[in-house]
């Protein structure tokens, strides 16, 4: 059993512009309408760094900023877990394309931004945070894998942790092999104790039950197409402000059950 409190939340995705708007859709107050994800410019980065950032960094920093803006904790003191099912697909495409030519000229900036921990690195630069930061991947299981890593820091080390799960699309021809349709990110501040801004208490356990689905066909399509969106059943409960239990997708042999108790 991994207990903790969800504080600030950040969401960006196709038709999901921020947490308040996403919460209205997830709780059924507004209909879901798919539209291309709009990514903010990371104004928190110095101009030189900002120019170098791709969609992965814009997405991850965008949701991380929304989540931490609404939490009672200083981002510079928060350990973080960044979980993504793949790296920056556009950079990967450009590097592999360059390596397929006889000239093999790889851009040094693209190469240093090709690391899986690129968003964690830029977040640390942007916030001045020198705390530990993990960068993890578990392919389609990445959301729950990252959530478990973050929740163990919350429960074992009693630290308030920023958890960011995010995926971006791969361009053709890789897109045919990994058909992620668009960018989607979810961030949450997870704390060991209840604070003034706590939204809900959660308890995470492993189970082998079948993962929950979304009843709205548009949201269910999103859930199954983008690994970070496997969190949507949990986000729906948080949006409703309701107590309940959801089962999130994870590995072939195990899932995660999350018990949610809202902080009224």
């Amino acid at each position, binding site marked *: 059993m991994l207990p903790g409190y969800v504080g600030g939340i950040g969401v960006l995705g196709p038709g999901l512009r921020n947490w308040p708007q996403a919460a209205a859709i997830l709780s059924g107050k507004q209909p879901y309408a798919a539209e291309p994800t709009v990514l903010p410019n990371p104004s928190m980065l110095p101009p030189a760094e900002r120019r170098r950032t791709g969609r992965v960094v814009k997405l991850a920093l965008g949701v991380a900023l929304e989540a931490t803006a609404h939490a009672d904790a200083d981002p510079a003191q928060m350990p973080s877990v960044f979980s993504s099912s793949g790296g920056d697909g556009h950079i990967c495409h450009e590097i592999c394309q360059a390596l397929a030519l006889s000239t093999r000229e790889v851009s*040094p900036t693209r*190469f240093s931004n090709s690391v899986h921990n690129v968003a*964690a690195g830029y977040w640390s630069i942007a916030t001045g945070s020198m705390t530990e*930061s993990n960068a993890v991947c578990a392919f389609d299981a990445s959301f729950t894998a990252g959530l478990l890593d973050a929740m163990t820091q919350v429960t074992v080390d009693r630290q308030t942790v920023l958890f960011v799960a995010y995926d971006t699309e791969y361009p053709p*021809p890789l897109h045919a092999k990994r058909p992620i349709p668009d960018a989607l990110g979810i961030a949450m501040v997870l704390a060991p104790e209840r604070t003034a801004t706590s939204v809900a208490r959660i308890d995470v356990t*492993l189970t082998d039950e079948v993962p929950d689905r979304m009843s709205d066909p548009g949201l269910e399509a999103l859930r199954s197409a983008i690994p970070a969106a496997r969190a949507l059943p949990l986000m729906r409960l948080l949006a409703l402000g309701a107590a309940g239990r959801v089962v999130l997708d994870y590995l072939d042999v195990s899932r995660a059950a999350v018990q949610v108790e809202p902080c009224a």
Partner: protein
Amino acid sequence: MKPMKPLLLAQFTATSCIGTGVAPTLASLAGQRSGLRRCDFETVKIDTHIGEVPGVDAQRLPAELQLFDCRNNRLAELALQQDGFFDAVKGAAARWGRRRIGVFIGTSTAGIMQTELAYRARDPVSGALPVDFEYGTTHNSFSVADYVRRRCGLDGPALAVSSACASSAKVFGTARRMIEAGLIDAALVGGTDSLCLTTLYGFHSLQLSSPAPCRPFDVARDGISIGEAAAFALLERASDQVGGDAILLYGVGESSDAYHMSAPHPEGLGAKRAMQAALAAASLEPGDIDYINLHGTGTPSNDRSESQAVTSIFGPTTPCSSTKGATGHTLGAAGALEAVISALAIRHGMMPGGVQTTRIDPTLTAHYIKENRHSPVRRVLSNSFGFGGTNCSLIFGCAG
């Protein structure tokens, strides 16, 4: 950082250019032999040296795991076959249960070479990648962790840490948290990174790879030599009565530089913070550390900032060295490889001197050793740092 409960390294193995398995690795270290040689990898035309593991291409994967076939997973398979590692995993699974053992593997590029090769074979008309190219089980960072968990039949939590060159040091941190949280009782941790064009040409483009074999802490050091390796350890809760030759993980310390994507903090502030956190987790003082296995890549900036960070905590007398002159920089596998080297240093009472280095940079104040030292080694600190300013220090030691 509160103290951690020490974890037992119930079994460990390493395969790199200096040895397939721990016995040849130890023999190479004892003989101060380097595995680096001039780069003739694949179609690469760069004036540099590499640490290539022999026999990787000839390695085959079991029929049921053919979708995972790529250089990276072949290297992982080759390494898993050494030192009775499969038997040790089987024993742990019988002891703890398959669901109670996690699998956490560090890698920076996994099997990206499959994608590099697929881009050379695109359909001339449509541009499509070859039909038989598999992304998820080869290129994706999780592929090697997924391969290891399937190959070993382990059903506990699993993930890949891909935090550049600190990846397979940081897996020890993930395992520590999961075990202390009670989610698992044991973990198969490690790292695997294999030679590929992305890293060879990428480090070359950043002017960070040396034409000569890398010379950590040398006054004339001018960059890294890229190597490949796979190293694994089985971590378990330590019982009170561990044997006299047991090796334990005493501390994990992690930090970020908050400075630059591809350059270390000039005074090594992030590195210093990671080492201090590891000492605090291990409830040790700097004077308790007998030997430091440095990150020591051989770039002018890494060695300068790491030396400053080490000296600021340990002063100028704690013996330290980098084993990358022997193995090359094995990137995402370096943390796990050097964890195994640290364990060998403790078990055999030998601090490996840094090979390839001729004249130690007099401006670097850390106590760098070039010759092997034979004396009891009770506690070792091992450093791993990476792009994005990610740092991890591990402390290993004997029981008691």
